[in-house]
């Protein structure tokens, strides 16, 4: 047995070596960390470092023992998904010029791997916070004024969530005496509040409504490749920590079901394709949280496998839209259309990803989402089932039809652009092939899930039911478009739950800057003029001001004392 190497370390050290390389050498070097990390995780599966579960890399910290490498089947699935996706995504991102952006992306990937293998709450918290900061840097590298502002809003959401999480962790550790990261307990009154605070901290990262607005706000403002990275890691790390910490937590089931339906309406109305896809992340993570909340072996298997394939097809959707953005400079539906003739590879990849996310049979979403839905059926959860199927039709609407149709078909806007450079095409094709592979032959994925799988997705009722649902939804789209009922795209934005923060928050800042500052200046002025009355008592100007201020403060205290005295008399007599 050889010494275990933490995959996060490969990315984190790899990130700091990026500035040493330039040009072609950098492009070659960039592929080494993801490939090395993928091989590392594959070696873990092959038992090179001992059998699962293993637990290594301890560090003493303030009387506690930090565990950096707690490995079991659950963390390994996520690590495999993260490293497997990182290879084609990095291949896609080779054309990025900015070394700073690449470094932030590598640190971001590395810290998400660190969070996945964290064996205790302190390590987990540290890596989640590093993820928030590096993700903000990725957003800032979008390079526009919009991305600058969105990045600041992003970090405000995540620092707030981090504070809530930290408060919960401290209270939880104080109550239980252990920092170990296992399933959280909420069976004692002393554990209610800490468990709820930790839960809130996690669901902010998962993008659960109403705490989701940072996601469609920030992800579309990153660069064409930056948003591919962002779409993979933050929300899926949150799915991982929820799967470990809150499996079978009943509110999570309802939150997840609500989360699958809520973003659909916004995605239907949205004009910016990357915002449509961001809402679609929320919808898909909803399926995962719902499965975690149901809490049976099948539903958790479904959630974990759905996270695995979701990472693939969602990054592929972001990559195909990113390619369009890379070539045309826009990702708005109102500017796009008819690109299938000149971008055939991108179009084919987009359709494969769209069919996967819509859960068409023979593609990867079908073999995994159906486990969550089947778990709802077996649990006799009729309302959850109905909501999930409604969301299934909704996913098909915005991700399955809207994104490919209005980008590559639809009304031709006269844009004549080619497919993106070869490395980007290869990155997309690799993921497209993986989507098909896990759809046709899901057994390798089923074997690595946390619980043994006894489920065959390809049976007649299931295939026909799903195809009826999808094809008749497509038929409805056709009917609504032809009859003019389907809402036409406008250059507009849709307000979401961050409206109070953005409008009222701006007003509050204005209040601090203008009336409050004016009041302070006025008081200051009054005190100074008071000071001038004492001109005779001090030689220097400073002395006079000092006397004046002291007298002013004494008068204020006297007034306050009299007021309190009166209030006391008035209340108690």
């Amino acid at each position, binding site marked *: 047995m050889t010494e275990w190497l933490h995959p996060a370390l490969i990315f984190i050290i790899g990130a700091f070596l990026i500035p040493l390389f330039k040009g072609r050498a950098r492009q070659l070097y960039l592929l080494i960390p993801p490939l090395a990390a993928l091989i590392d995780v594959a070696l873990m599966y092959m038992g090179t470092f001992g059998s699962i579960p293993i637990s290594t890399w301890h560090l003493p910290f303030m009387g506690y023992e930090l565990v950096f490498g707690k490995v079991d089947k659950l963390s390994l699935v996520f690590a495999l998904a993260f490293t497997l996706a990182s290879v084609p995504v990095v291949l896609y991102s080779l054309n990025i010029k900015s070394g700073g952006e690449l470094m932030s992306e590598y640190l971001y990937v590395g810290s998400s791997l660190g969070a996945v293998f964290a064996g205790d709450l302190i390590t987990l918290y540290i890596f989640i916070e590093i993820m928030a900061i590096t993700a903000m840097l990725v957003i800032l590298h979008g390079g526009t004024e919009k991305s600058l502002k969105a990045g600041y809003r992003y970090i405000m959401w995540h620092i707030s969530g981090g504070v809530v999480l930290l408060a919960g962790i401290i209270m939880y550790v104080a109550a239980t005496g252990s920092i170990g990261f296992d399933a959280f307990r909420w069976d004692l009154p002393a554990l209610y509040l800490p468990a709820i605070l930790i839960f809130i901290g996690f669901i902010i990262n998962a993008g659960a409504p109403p705490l989701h607005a940072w996601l469609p706000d920030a992800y579309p403002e990153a660069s064409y490749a930056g948003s591919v990275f962002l779409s993979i890691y933050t929300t899926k790390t949150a799915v991982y920590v929820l799967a470990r910490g809150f499996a079978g937590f009943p509110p999570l089931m309802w939150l997840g079901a609500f989360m699958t339906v809520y973003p*659909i*309406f916004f995605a*239907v*109305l949205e004009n910016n394709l990357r915002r449509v896809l961001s809402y679609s992340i929320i919808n898909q993570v909803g399926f995962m949280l719902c499965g975690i909340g149901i809490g049976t072996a099948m539903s958790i298997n479904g959630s974990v496998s759905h996270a695995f394939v979701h990472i693939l097809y969602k990054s592929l959707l972001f990559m195909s839209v990113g390619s369009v953005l890379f070539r045309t400079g826009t990702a708005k539906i109102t500017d796009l259309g008819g690109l299938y003739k000149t971008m055939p590879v991108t179009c084919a990849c987009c*359709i494969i990803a769209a*069919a996967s996310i819509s859960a*068409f*049979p*023979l*593609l990867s979403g079908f073999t995994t989402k159906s486990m969550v839905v089947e778990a709802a059926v077996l649990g*006799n959860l*009729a309302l959850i089932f109905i909501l999930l*199927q*409604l969301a299934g*039709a*909704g996913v*098909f*609407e915005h991700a399955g039809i809207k994104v*490919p*149709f209005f980008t*590559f*078909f*639809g*009304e*031709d806007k006269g844009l004549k652009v080619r497919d993106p450079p070869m490395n980007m095409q290869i990155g997309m094709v690799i993921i497209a092939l993986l989507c098909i592979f896990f759809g046709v032959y899901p057994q390798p994925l089923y074997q690595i899930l946390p619980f043994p799988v006894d489920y065959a997705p*390809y*049976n*007649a*009722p299931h*295939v*026909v*039911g*799903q*195809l*009826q*649902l*999808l*094809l*008749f*939804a*497509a*038929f*409805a789209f*056709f009917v*609504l478009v032809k009859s003019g*009922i*389907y*809402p036409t795209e*406008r*250059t*507009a*934005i*849709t*307000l979401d739950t961050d409206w109070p923060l*953005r*409008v009222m928050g*701006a*007003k509050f*800042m204005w209040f601090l*800057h203008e009336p409050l500052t004016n009041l302070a200046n006025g008081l200051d002025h009054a005190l100074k003029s008071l000071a001038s009355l004492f001109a005779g008592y001090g030689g220097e100007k400073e002395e006079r001001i000092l006397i004046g201020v002291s007298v002013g403060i004494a008068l204020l205290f006297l007034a306050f004392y009299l007021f309190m005295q009166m209030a006391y008399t008035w209340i108690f007599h």
Partner: protein
Amino acid sequence: MSTEIVAILAIIGLIGYVVFFFGAKEPSHQHAKLLLELFGLCLVVMVVAGLFIQWPLHFWWDDLKAFYAVYGFAAFVFLIYAAKGLRLILQKDEDYYDKREVKYR
């Protein structure tokens, strides 16, 4: 129903999905009518296949044979109308937030 038939049905579904894009695009594709007829054929195949299937009876609606077809259509129409309703309240100009940004002296 045998595995082969299930696989064939799945492939028919995928074909329906792809031809739908090319058939529904505008300005009209030269074979648009043919492609849309193909898409319609896929719809019919799915409904007919549903009649011959032993549906597992978990919920009362599993008796209805073509429940998923009706539900898919109805769900889609509901979502679009609901979104159109929301649009009246929630959709604003693109510079909505920029206008509300406070300028300090």
